[in-house]
């Protein structure tokens, strides 16, 4: 049954594809040629709008059709006070704005998302739209006829999204395959600022008490840590997942205790722990550990444990996320402590340098929406128009702020949340999930202003401090690189032992269980585990990504 249905679908897709090809070759060439000319992009946008207006009457679309959307992400996560999407203001509003009824589907709460996704792929008919982490396996899915190649249709039916891609090279690269097939609607962040949320933090009140200035170089940090240890018996404690990259930039290293790859100045993919800079950095960390400056509990601490340590004033310096930082600040306030936690800039090697790396994610989230082959051709235009909505000006406002006059108003030309959101008893973060679709991953561009408004000032200042001196994407390995089936099998076989060994050794170097004199043996062992081959695959994938 499934086979027959699949074959029919393939035949249909093919035949329609051919008709489209022959029918649209003219306009296809047009948009391709105009997109190449940068200065001409504006006129082409005008052109496409003009042709669109004949066929497309704008939102809300008049239709009786329902489209089904499977999504394991923020968009389908209901606020706890609602039991269905018919009660949720964001989903109701989206239907009103677009005119399209949506049958939202999501994995049951508490189930493993990847497993739910794979099970869903196994069913006979797929939803029209699926939204999940697709980038790595997308070429495979297109080849297996699970998701549609939208190269032809995207410029026609999603003109706003298409225009956004023409403007932003990074977004454009991310949502197509190495072969140039467009298939995805991405969940984008407006700026790198909003993609950064972890960094060094320090007790500012203690700095002031000890007449110390905000540390910059590793020597400054060393002095601060020693002073805090003597004066307050406070240590450097951290949740080791949050110490990433931690203080590495102080030695021009690119990782702390987690196995990390990065792109170096010569566009080469490198394993951070195999570098001499990392050895130097670990030497410093080990020395701190040895002298009792680093809290030995850090090896096993989680966020909750860290929070207790911060509240008990046993920590003077740490590395944490803004969500935790706001907890610490609240704890201190409610228990009457003077603790004044602030974000500190990432350390540098020499005064005045720019930190080589800071924590951050890609400005494209790994979540993306694709149209499946189960979506019939008649429906394709509607589905694409619906997806395009998030990338229109109106859609941008709706996805980020909800309805004007309800959840936001314009104050001096800036959309500002109303009391309905800001005064919610559960706090602004929970309140936003009722009215807004981009707090996590949405089918739109996430506004920086939204992120700024939902965070407390101390967190915003912290992110400002962390990001002030660095271009995040310089050394980051892009999240939308894809692997072929063979490559991904090979990588999963090679990489597990490498990361296990590297992270195990990193901690041993830290605690001194293994001497850093054995660093060369460590490198030799890594090489015997095919580290070179792993980097080679990643390099190829990166190269293909960069020429997309």
């Amino acid at each position, binding site marked *: 049954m*499934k086979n027959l249905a699949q074959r029919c679908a393939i035949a249909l897709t093919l035949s329609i594809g051919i008709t489209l090809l022959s029918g649209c070759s003219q306009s296809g060439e047009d948009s391709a040629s105009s997109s190449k000319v940068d200065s001409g992009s504006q006129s082409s946008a005008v052109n496409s709008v003009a042709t669109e207006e004949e066929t497309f009457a704008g939102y809300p679309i008049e239709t009786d059709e329902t489209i089904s959307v499977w999504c394991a992400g923020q968009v389908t996560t209901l606020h706890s006070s609602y039991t269905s999407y018919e009660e949720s203001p964001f989903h109701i509003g989206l239907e009103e704005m677009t005119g399209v009824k949506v049958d939202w589907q999501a994995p049951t709460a508490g189930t493993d998302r990847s497993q739910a996704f794979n099970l869903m*792929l196994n069913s006979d008919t797929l939803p029209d739209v699926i939204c999940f982490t697709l980038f790595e396996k997308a070429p495979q*899915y297109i080849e297996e006829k699970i998701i549609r190649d939208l190269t032809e249709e995207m410029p026609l039916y999603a003109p706003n999204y298409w225009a956004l891609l023409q403007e932003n090279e990074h977004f454009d690269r991310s949502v197509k395959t190495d072969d140039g097939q467009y298939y995805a609607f991405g969940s984008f962040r407006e700026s790198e600022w909003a993609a950064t949320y972890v960094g060094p933090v320090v007790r500012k009140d203690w700095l002031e008490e000890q007449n110390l200035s905000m540390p910059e170089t590793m020597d400054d940090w060393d002095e601060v840590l020693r002073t805090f240890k003597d004066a307050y018996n406070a240590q450097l404690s951290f949740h080791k997942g949050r110490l990433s990259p931690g203080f590495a930039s102080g030695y021009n290293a690119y990782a702390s205790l987690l196995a990390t790859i990065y792109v170096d100045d010569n566009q080469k993919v490198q394993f951070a722990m195999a570098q001499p800079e990392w050895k130097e950095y670990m030497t410093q960390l080990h020395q701190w550990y040895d002298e009792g400056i680093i809290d030995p509990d850090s090896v*096993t601490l989680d966020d909750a444990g860290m929070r207790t340590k911060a509240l008990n004033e046993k920590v003077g310096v740490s590395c944490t996320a803004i969500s935790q930082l706001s907890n610490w600040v609240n704890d201190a306030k409610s228990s009457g402590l003077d603790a004044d936690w602030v974000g500190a800039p990432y350390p540098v090697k020499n005064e005045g340098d720019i930190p080589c790396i800071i924590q951050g994610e890609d400005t494209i989230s790994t979540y993306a929406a694709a149209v499946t082959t189960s979506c019939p051709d008649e429906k394709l235009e509607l589905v694409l128009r619906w997806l395009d909505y998030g990338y229109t000006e109106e859609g941008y406002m709706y996805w980020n702020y909800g309805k004007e006059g309800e959840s936001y108003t314009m104050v001096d030309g800036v959309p500002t949340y109303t009391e309905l959101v800001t005064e919610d008893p559960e706090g602004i973060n929970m309140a936003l999930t009722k009215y807004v679709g981009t707090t996590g991953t949405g089918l739109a561009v996430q506004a920086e202003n939204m992120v700024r408004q939902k965070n407390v000032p101390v967190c915003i200042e912290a992110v400002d401090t962390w990001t002030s001196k660095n271009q995040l994407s310089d050394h980051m390995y892009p999240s939308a690189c894809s692997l072929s089936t063979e490559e991904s099998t090979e990588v999963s076989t090679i990489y597990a032992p490498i990361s*296990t060994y590297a*992270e195990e050794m*990193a*901690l041993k170097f830290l605690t001194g269980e293994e001497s850093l004199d054995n660093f060369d043996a460590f490198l030799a062992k890594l090489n015997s585990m095919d580290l070179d081959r792993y980097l080679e695959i990643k390099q190829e994938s990166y190269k293909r990504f960069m020429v997309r």
Partner: protein
Amino acid sequence: MQIEHIKPARSGKPAGHLRRTLVRDFKMNKWKYLIILPVIVYFAIFAYKPMYGVIIAFKNYRPSLGILDSPWVGLLQFKLFFRDIYFWRLLRNTFCISGLSILFGFPAPIILALLLNEIRCSWFKRTVQTISYMPYFISVVVICGLIKAFCQTDGVFNDLIAFFGGERTNLLASKQNFYPIYVGSGIWQSIGWDSIIYLAALSGIDQEQYEAAKIDGASRFGQMVYVTLPGLLPTITILFILRMGGILNVGYEKILLLYQPLTYEVADVFSTYVYRKGIIEANYSYSTAVGLFNSVVNIVFLLLTNGISKKVNETSLF
């Protein structure tokens, strides 16, 4: 088709006989057959039918192709698994953790049951029993949270160590402490619950045997050794065989919550390694191969223990 039909009829004496016997038996016991029917259906549908899925251990399973259409790859998944440089370490750790849990964890509830059995004051006995099986109902995440907090340098255990003049260390960060913490907390959590079955078995021992032993001059301890323990032996044997049949199934959630890279060397087991590999979601074939390997080792141990037990004390599962 026709020939096949005729065949049994012609040479049909035993077959026909068998059929007649079956029919007669069926008529005689039709209600019993009816009663067992749901059980057979249950096992057929939920245990035997899914078993064919095991073939994906020998395939490169792709969700879009389905189980039957995925390409065969022979023993590739097993090769990948056995050739992994951490294979032997993982195998050793699995056996160590499981072995120690059995060595110390298996006798513990028996001892508790024997001790409880000697208590004559019934309210005290019941109170002890209730308290001892309470931890069983606490989620493993909470238990591990507690263990972590207790093992920190400023935790309860370190307070005790410092009180006796020891040095404060992060207990969970050292390899030597992992097994005692893991096994000890395991015993603490399940001792009460596991002792229930022994207490039930104890109540089945004939009281006249105790009286006879008393008349023969057996002390309390003598009664325990010569009456109570032999009475418990069949239960102990069966439970032990079952336990051996699960030798490779270690509680990986707990390991996952308690270990970290510094203790990988002693704590990393198959299930945690595969979990970290992120392969559970991505590669069903590989995890099926690992699962199949686990099952085979388990069944070998089960049969072995069962065989030995059959010879030595004539109690066995089958």
